[in-house]
């Protein structure tokens, strides 16, 4: 298993850089991961990250659409905050697994 250093913390990650242990996450670490992805974290970003983490820990599936239920942003704003591939980026920064898309 690979390890990475973020903000002085050693984090276990998989080969795509996603956390393999979501308990190693904290806000400082998140800020460092975000920087790698070219994103400066704001309170809005953090609120979304917390939303994704709590959904993940309660076992609910994550989808772009579920962002509408966050009450924080809608899908369009989600794209603006995490440009490119918002769900992939946001889950990486939130320290949770990449959502699997099946066929």
């Amino acid at each position: 298993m690979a390890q990475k250093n973020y903000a002085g913390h050693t984090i276990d990650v998989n080969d795509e850089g996603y956390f393999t242990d979501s308990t190693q996450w904290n806000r400082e670490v998140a800020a460092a991961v975000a920087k790698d992805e070219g994103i400066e974290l704001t309170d809005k970003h953090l609120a979304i990250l917390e939303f994704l983490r709590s959904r993940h820990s309660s076992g609910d599936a994550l989808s772009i659409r579920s962002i509408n239920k966050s009450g924080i942003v809608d899908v369009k704003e989600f794209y603006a905050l995490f440009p490119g591939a918002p769900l992939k980026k946001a889950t990486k920064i939130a320290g949770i697994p990449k959502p699997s898309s099946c066929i």
Partner: protein
Amino acid sequence: MKHILILGAGTAGTLMANKLRKKVSRREWDITIVDENREHYYQPGFLFIPFGIYKKEDVIKSKSKFIPGGVETIFSRVEKILPKENRVILEDNRELKYDFLIIATGTRIAPEETPGLLGELWFKDIFDFYTIEGAVALAERIKAFDGGKIIVNITELPFKCPVAPLEFIFLADSYFKKRGIRDSVELTLVTPLPGAFTKPIATKMLSGLMEKKGIKIVPDFNIAEVDNEGKRIIDYEGKSVEFDLLVTIPTNKGADMIERSGMGDDLNFVPTDKHTLQAIGYDNIFVLGDAANLPTSKAGSVAHFAGDILEANLLSAIKGEPMTAKFDGHANCYIVTSDKKGTLIDFNYDTEPLPGRYPYIIGPFGLLKDTRLNYYGKLFFKWMYWNLLLRGHDLPVTSHMSMCCKKRPQ
């Protein structure tokens, strides 16, 4: 008397009614199946209708023909399930009690989820082919099409029969070649996926074919809205693609009834144990077919393979024994690649589609190979569907995926 109740008489519900009636005692168990429609559509046939290969009559039969004797059929809309009370309410407020419930209400397209999709161009220059109405209307539009930009757009995942959009575009390529106007038709697949398909080895094979046929692909495109006036689709980042004819695969959702019952996820699919096929949180409710949120394809072949597992587990549950059968996510799909050739993929939860050969009564069929025999396999599937699959008979293949004759490329 005890009751087994099946909601939905499509592929999954019908095959389950046939299997169970043969296996459970008629003296102790009655079986009831409910559906709101009297017609059974062979949905894989919808793909061929826009190109005049099949007509509407080729894909419709009466549902009743496939429900075995000893099963009561009720044609009514299901209003909702009361899972904690083991009761189901129908639209006329009639009430059905059950000891075991099987949810098989499938998935429907939900074009209303995308702003502008149902705008003034709907069924003029924008069509789906996942409904009989869409497929038939699109056939007329394609017949009159004499050049321009055709885009096939996948709205979001998951959607049923994930290879159908590719098959559509391959058939369009053949069709316009035959009409001698392929040079004036631009064919583009616009998809939220990073490539033609999700799994790497199959993606490589399929994108190779697309390139060879001059079909373009716009990946990573998550549609936000349709601009009817400007005839373009726009994604969440503001990228846009213009069209003369838009063939859409709209958002797929589970039945609205699932939402009314408070049993669905964001898209009204029922959270389901991927091995036992029980609805999570309810020991006496099973989910079969497209209605389940399983991480495998939504396909008729999957309903068939999972049906064997559901049968075994339900029989165990009836006897009060532990359930030992486990579903592996097995899926098996023919993919037509032109009006003469096809390829075949076979996979499960853990193994992506691999190349090789597929052992069959006739064949062997080539996995991830482009052959004539695979095209006929697809046409033969229609016969198997009506005569074997729906009637709950075994198909000449195993329900668990076999690694026989598959090879991982170096």
